[in-house]
């Protein structure tokens, strides 16, 4: 019968230990690194008696009520046993003793020390000492000859010596061991032992075998070895009967040999494979207690005890007799007994002892299949009933071996297949739940509340708690039906259980928001159909079953549609009218899952948005959470912590929005997602230290993680802004969805989002400008809205970075969009603002003509008529009156005050349109007068007001501008840009001449302004005053400052003069215009060239930060 290995238990703190039995064998005595000697009644003794003997105890020996210990204060002490009272010091060394042993009758103690000495001391009289000198290194172990003639010792010098006690000489010395410099470095502590009784044999553990030397001849009688020993042996001890030798190895193997038969009879492996450093045989019965180098104590029972029933009753008696024989020193033995014994020993190992499986057999034989199962966490195998069927055990053991040692053994039994292996399908789960096998678990944690389930001996209950107590109060339910899945919404609690025996699977709904008195309902599933996943939406509930059916119910319990699922369900999630179904599309390979997704809308018009598309997952990951953001966008999380969100703006593709693993501190930490909010952007999750899901207690707290799209180079400013921009777009897709589906939503949120996005685009544009990436600027401009494009153009022109290219392109873009009526209105607005504001400095060219004209027209009071007679507006009247009359007035005012307001309009459109008057000079091509009226009289209308309400502001805003060099420069540039654009604008306009028809108000563009005229007259003055002025620009500047000094009346006079001139020019207007255009172009080119020469300093001054501030400022003005 095999020995029974009892589980190891904690004995001492980690470190070297020693063990022995007391004389009667009633208790085990151990000593250890903690300096305590513990007396154990048996292995299960929970309260062993402790005797503190010193700081560290290296070795102990017990005989005749005396406990001798070798302790760290270099002494060998005696304590009384079992009282534990100190009984003096036997001897001292210069360093600590490593091993102490008693002789057979307990009168002498031998101690071997680290100072190379061995002392033999009389216990009763410590004056009687004998010292054995000769070792050249610390002494490892000692063994007293039972006949008190010799002492054997092993030392770090590699020698095993036998000493004659009487004359303290060395009888023999064998160089058996490896040399080392100290005990701690010794490969083996080499606990040797004499055969009890006659002392005929000395057993010495040498590497992987036990060498037996015959007394007197000192010849190597034989070796005991075994194939299972893979590491060197540390300890050897004889059974009290002298028939067996037990040895413990440094890797925790304990082997017992029958010395007569030279056969191995037991092999026991330490459960953790620690070094066995103490081994003691019970004085009477077959027990071995052992300790390891980690301070644990273990016990083997029934070691070589031939008392098992299998062998019948005859054997024990013979063995007993033989035992007695042996004890008497008579080693003839009973051959029959030995045979029997051997037979018993070997019958425990009926199979070959040499191969690998032998080890496994041993494990079974040593009687711990159950324990091993536990270790392997393999709970499907229960070996209880199979105790004696070794064949069956063998098979199972082989399986375990497979599990334990990795693939090779298992693979050798399966057909070889190196290709991809199918992944087991993940089981259905409820989002926000923890595993069902836990006794305390979360059934749901979502944005509404928490459902917890307690399933222990006392109680099987469900606790429902709402985050917002105003939804409903917390509820406690008895879980008599053993519900396993649950969901929670603002309306109801939904629970479901699987079928049990004759009870069908049930769906149970607690509809607490119902206004009638019955607040719950329950539905039984048909036989053989189990509910696997459930979810709640607004006004409906859904359950997916094992029959691949998706059953829909109203929240009140009416059965609705039943759908077939394309595969076994993985999870369901509901939100509003949307139902999100994830199922297995097929079998995944190599750790991947193969999942499909359906997104259904169950509202009035039912439709399927996602029709079974594959659900992208991280490699080798499975799905851990599905759900909707609070705004209703489907999201899911996989086991690698990647959160993905449906990108409705990208035809319902999935975009990863967060990698929760990035935020984890430890490798085994995870975040357990409980909710996603798009506005504000929050990923709500529970940090779990060292696990995938949180425990119910202590109650976990929610943390909020930011989202981050996996864009490249997010460390750089560019990458960062790109990430922010696309994230902002993605996280506002839900607004479009809501709008499309007729939900209410906050308009301001959208505006804010748009503003944020445009701001980001502007910043990116500014960055690209700085890097002189003009093409990129144009690309960015493509992403912008109309307003932002205008700003961008303004920005570009101010920063002078983009030599018109980007601007022109953007203008084209803008022009193509400028087809709608309303946009034309905008253009009109712009013109007025433009004339009122920003470009005024460029007085000689282009726009300012308009102003003059406007003032003139204002007197015609065409505008008043327009406003009072809305009839002419055939279409777009509302929009017109809104945009033109309502927005014009403030726009003009603000235009007069701040040039920033220019950002609202599109300069390009205006530039294009500023040509309008030109074709308008031609005889009207349009037949529709009303049409033209609706448009053209508008022009004067607003300016009229502006001019009427405050005349001077028209000019006033000029005053501050040229003071700032930068501003004036910018405005020059603006003008230049505008000029350059004119031709394209004309082209763009030409194909649609129908717009511009009315001859009367569409006055020809005046070639000259008051300032120009004044300047012409005064040019000579300026030149004479400043002879160094060679530059036209300088002259103009000087002229402007002088002009401004003039009184308002004078200026007006000049203006009127100019107008008069213009009117007088009436007929030639068109030609002049062309001429003017040409000359202006030429001039502007000249100007540009000059500026390019003159202005790099200014350009530099406009560094990026300033530009960014500027653009931001412009936005704020909006």
């Amino acid at each position: 019968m095999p020995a029974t290995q009892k589980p190891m238990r904690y004995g001492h703190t980690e470190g070297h230990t020693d063990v022995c039995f007391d004389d009667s064998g009633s208790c085990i005595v151990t000593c250890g690194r903690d300096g305590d000697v513990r007396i154990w009644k048996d292995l299960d003794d929970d309260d062993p008696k402790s005797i503190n003997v010193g700081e560290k105890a290296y070795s102990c020996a017990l005989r005749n009520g005396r406990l001798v210990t070798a302790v760290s204060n270099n002494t060998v002490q005696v304590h009384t046993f079992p009282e534990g009272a100190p009984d003096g010091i036997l001897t001292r060394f210069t360093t600590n003793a490593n091993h102490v042993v008693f002789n057979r009758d307990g009168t002498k103690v031998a101690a071997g020390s680290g100072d190379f000495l061995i002392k033999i001391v009389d216990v009763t009289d410590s004056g009687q000492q004998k010292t054995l000198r000769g070792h050249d290194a610390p002494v490892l172990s000692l063994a007293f000859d039972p006949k008190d003639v010799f002492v054997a010792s092993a030392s770090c010098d590699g020698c095993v010596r036998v000493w004659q006690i009487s004359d303290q000489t060395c009888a023999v010395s064998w160089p058996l061991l490896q040399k080392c410099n100290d005990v701690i470095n010794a490969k083996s502590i080499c606990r040797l032992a004499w055969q009890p009784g006659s002392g005929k044999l000395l057993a010495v553990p040498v590497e992987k075998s036990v060498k037996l030397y015959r007394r007197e001849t000192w010849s190597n009688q034989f070796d005991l070895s075994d194939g299972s020993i893979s590491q060197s042996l540390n300890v050897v001890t004889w059974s009290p009967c002298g028939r067996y030798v037990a040895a413990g190895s440094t890797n925790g193997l304990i082997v017992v040999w029958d010395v007569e038969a030279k056969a191995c009879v037991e092999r026991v492996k330490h459960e953790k494979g620690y070094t066995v450093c103490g081994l003691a045989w019970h004085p009477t019965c077959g027990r071995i207690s052992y300790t390891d180098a980690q301070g644990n104590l273990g016990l083997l029972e029934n070691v070589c005890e031939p008392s098992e029933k299998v062998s019948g009753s005859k054997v024990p008696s013979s063995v007993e007799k033989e035992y007695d024989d042996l004890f008497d020193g008579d080693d003839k033995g009973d051959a029959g007994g030995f045979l029997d014994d051997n037979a018993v020993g070997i019958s425990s190992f009926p199979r070959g002892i040499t191969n690998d499986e032998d080890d496994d057999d041993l494990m079974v034989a040593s009687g711990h299949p159950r324990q091993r199962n536990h270790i392997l966490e393999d709970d499907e195998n229960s070996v209880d009933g199979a105790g004696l069927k070794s064949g069956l055990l063998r098979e199972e053991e082989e399986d375990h071996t497979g599990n334990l040692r990795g693939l090779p053994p298992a693979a050798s039994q399966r057909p070889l297949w190196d290709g991809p292996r199918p992944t087991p399908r993940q089981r259905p789960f409820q989002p926000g739940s923890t595993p069902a096998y836990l006794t305390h678990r979360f059934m749901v944690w979502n944005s509404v509340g928490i459902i917890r389930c307690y399933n222990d001996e006392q109680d099987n209950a469900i606790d429902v708690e709402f985050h917002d107590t105003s939804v409903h109060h917390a509820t406690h339910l008895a879980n008599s039906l053993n519900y396993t899945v649950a969901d929670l919404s603002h309306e109801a609690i939904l629970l479901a259980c699987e079928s049990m025996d004759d009870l069908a699977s049930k769906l149970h709904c607690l509809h607490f928001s119902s206004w009638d008195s019955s607040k719950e309902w329950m539905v039984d599933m048909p036989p053989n159909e189990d509910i696997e996943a459930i979810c709640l939406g607004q006004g409906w509930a859904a359950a997916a079953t094992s029959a691949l059916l998706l059953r829909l119910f109203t929240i009140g319990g009416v059965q609705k549609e039943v759908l077939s699922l394309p595969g076994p369900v993985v999870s369901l999630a509901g939100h509003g009218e949307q139902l999100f179904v994830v199922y297995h599309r097929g079998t995944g390979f190599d750790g991947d899952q193969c999942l499909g997704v359906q997104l259904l809308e169950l509202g009035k018009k039912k439709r399927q948005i996602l029709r079974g598309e594959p659900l992208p997952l991280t490699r080798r990951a499975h799905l851990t959470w599905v759900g909707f953001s609070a705004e209703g966008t489907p999201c899911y999380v996989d086991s690698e912590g990647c959160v993905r969100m449906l990108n409705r703006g990208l035809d319902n593709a999935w975009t990863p929005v967060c990698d929760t693993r990035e935020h984890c501190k430890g490798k085994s930490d995870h975040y357990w997602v409980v909710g996603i909010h798009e506005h504000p952007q929050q990923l709500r999750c529970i940090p779990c230290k060292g696990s995938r899901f949180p425990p119910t207690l202590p109650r976990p707290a929610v943390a909020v993680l930011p989202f981050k799209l996996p864009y490249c180079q997010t460390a750089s400013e560019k990458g960062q802004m790109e990430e922010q921009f696309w994230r902002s777009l993605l996280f506002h897709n839900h607004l479009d969805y809501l709008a499309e589906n007729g939900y209410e939503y906050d308009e301001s949120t959208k505006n804010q989002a748009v503003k944020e996005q445009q701001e980001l685009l502007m910043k990116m544009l500014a960055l690209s400008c700085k890097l002189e990436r003009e093409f990129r600027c144009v690309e960015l401009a493509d992403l912008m809205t109309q307003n932002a494009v205008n700003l961008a153009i303004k920005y570009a022109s101010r920063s002078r970075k983009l030599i018109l290219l980007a601007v022109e392109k953007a203008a084209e873009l803008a022009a193509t969009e400028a087809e709608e009526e309303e946009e034309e209105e905008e253009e009109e607005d712009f013109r007025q603002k433009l004339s009122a504001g920003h470009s005024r400095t460029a007085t000689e060219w282009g726009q300012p003509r308009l102003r003059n004209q406007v003032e003139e027209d204002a007197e015609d009071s065409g505008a008043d008529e327009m406003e009072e007679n809305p009839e002419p507006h055939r279409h777009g009247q509302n929009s017109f009156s809104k945009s033109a009359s309502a927005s014009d007035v403030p726009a003009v005012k603000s235009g007069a005050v701040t040039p920033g307001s220019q950002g609202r309009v599109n300069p390009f459109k205006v530039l294009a349109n500023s040509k309008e008057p030109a074709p308008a000079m031609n005889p009207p091509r349009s037949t529709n007068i009303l049409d033209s009226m609706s448009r053209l009289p508008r022009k004067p209308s607003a300016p009229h007001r502006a001019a009427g309400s405050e005349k001077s502001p028209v000019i006033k805003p000029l005053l501050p501008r040229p003071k700032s060099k930068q501003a004036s420069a910018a405005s020059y540039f603006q003008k230049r840009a505008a000029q350059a654009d004119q031709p394209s604008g004309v082209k763009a306009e030409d194909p649609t001449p129908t717009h511009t028809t009315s001859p009367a108000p569409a006055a020809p563009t005046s070639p000259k302004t008051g300032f120009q005229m004044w300047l012409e007259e005064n040019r000579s003055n300026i030149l004479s005053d400043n002879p160094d002025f060679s530059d036209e620009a300088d002259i103009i500047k000087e002229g402007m400052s002088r002009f401004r000094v003039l009184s308002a009346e004078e200026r007006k006079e000049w203006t009127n003069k100019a107008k008069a001139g213009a009117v007088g020019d009436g007929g030639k207007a068109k030609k002049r215009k062309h001429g003017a255009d040409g000359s202006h172009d030429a001039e502007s080119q000249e100007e540009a060239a000059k500026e390019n020469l003159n202005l790099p300093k200014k350009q530099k001054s406009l560094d990026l930060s300033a530009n960014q501030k500027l653009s931001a400022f412009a936005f704020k003005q909006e």
Partner: protein
Amino acid sequence: MDAAEVEFLAEKELVTIIPNFSLDKIYLIGGDLGPFDPGLPVDVPLWLAVSLKQRQKCRLLPPAWMDVEKLEKMRDRERQEETFTPVPSPYYMELTKLLLSHAADNIPRADAVRTLVKDLWDTRMAKLRVSADSFVRQQEAHAKLDNLTLLEISTGGAFLTAALRHMHKLRSGPRPPETAASQDL
């Protein structure tokens, strides 16, 4: 400054609560609070936390240091070292008292926390007394004490200064006669 005033100051300390109601940001003179999302932790001043807790409107999350193991370490360190060790919060005593009296159900092992903080306090007060004693005995002119909290100063400070004043009077001997005369007047 008395304990009530110190407590008042301590009530401005931020603590984390998990509200069970929903409320937009509230704008107060001392700063904006919220928004309050049910189930989502939010930092609020202690006074608001206590008030909400009393109305069962929130669950309190104990401060990170209010943990038995951490407090044990702190107490041991406090006992080992001669000088005052840094405390987890400048208002640890007040926070503990208020939180434990109003939200003991939200603090794991509240009793142990109470004992530990009391131990910490007692140790510190003992140190304070000892140092005040040696200060007086050695007739030092000044002493430096680091890591003292407001409450600790207010507990010992007033008494110590009053005592020093009296001692000064006693030590400076009999009053000059003029003063006595003036008193007579």
